[in-house]
């Protein structure tokens, strides 16, 4: 039987689909790994660890343009809205087992406060380097839904790129995910060639950060 957490995940996907948001978001974080497994995108890959965080990246914070109170709809469907009193950042918890947080790429100089989605009434946390996940994304067709996820190559490189700025516990978790993915991708030459190709497209500074993380943690591809 499917776990209650997975059921809640799929209920959330259904909700995003029903209200016309699904096509405008990318599922990032550990739930993307679950979708890689469910879709069979990387043959033989099994995601080992899933957190309560359901990270949802807006591909473009100005889309969809149709005004809709997503925060109210989530609340109506039993999600508890938790809003940081200082920053205004919203998170939506369902049943104590899944926490939906919206993300967006940090723009320009960046800002301390979260970004407000003009049409959906929710706030999103701005993160540097996250645009790589939206830019290099693919659509998976799972359980009748078309869901955007980062291409595994982008997922791996992004985890390596941001590793230094994560807490020690998260660094380890991320590196575990990278190793699991690379272990399976190594058997597929096209996948590894795509990792290298994407790496070559990244700015010099980003490539240096990735190299540094790989060297420090003995990760080769």
């Amino acid at each position: 039987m499917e776990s209650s957490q997975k059921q809640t995940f799929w209920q959330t996907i259904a909700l995003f689909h029903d209200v016309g948001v699904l096509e405008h978001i990318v599922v990032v974080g550990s739930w993307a790994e679950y979708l890689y497994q469910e879709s069979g995108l990387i043959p033989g890959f099994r995601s080992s660890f899933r957190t309560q965080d359901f990270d949802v990246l807006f591909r473009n914070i100005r889309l969809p343009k149709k005004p809709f109170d997503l925060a109210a709809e989530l609340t109506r469907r039993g999600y508890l809205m938790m809003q940081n009193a200082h920053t205004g950042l919203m998170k939506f918890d369902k049943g104590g087992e899944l926490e939906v947080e919206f993300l967006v790429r940090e723009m320009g100089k960046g800002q301390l406060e979260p970004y407000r989605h003009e049409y959906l009434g929710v706030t999103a946390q701005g993160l540097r380097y996250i645009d790589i996940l939206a830019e290099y994304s693919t659509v998976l067709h799972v359980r009748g839904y078309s869901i955007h996820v980062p291409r595994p190559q982008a997922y791996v490189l992004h985890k390596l790129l941001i590793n230094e700025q994560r807490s020690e516990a998260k660094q380890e978790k991320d590196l575990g995910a990278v190793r699991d993915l690379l272990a399976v991708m190594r058997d597929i030459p096209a996948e590894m060639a795509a990792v290298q190709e994407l790496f070559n497209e990244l700015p010099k500074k980003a490539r240096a950060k990735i190299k540094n993380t790989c060297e420090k943690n003995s990760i080769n591809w």
Partner: protein
Amino acid sequence: MPVIHDALKEELERLMEKEQAYKNQLALLPKGRIHHKLIGGKKYPYLTYREGGKVKSRYVKPEELEHVMAQVEQRQQHEKALKSIRADLRMIRKVVKVGK
């Protein structure tokens, strides 16, 4: 081990924050269940709840019924969530204590 300990501490803080958020929200939602009383052959909705060990009930106006029912349902969902959060909290507190 320190990495696992830090991860658990991080999770503990997160759960405590979540527990507080649920408690705050529950304080705003009505306790009890909707029951219908048969009076003079007609059904009237009442919100029945416990207060100070006594069972009390309050008439719910027809125009408020849908809203109150939704709130009651939300309360039940949130109570279930709080129970699950508290179970996780108990478990993590034990592990963090043992690991010290």
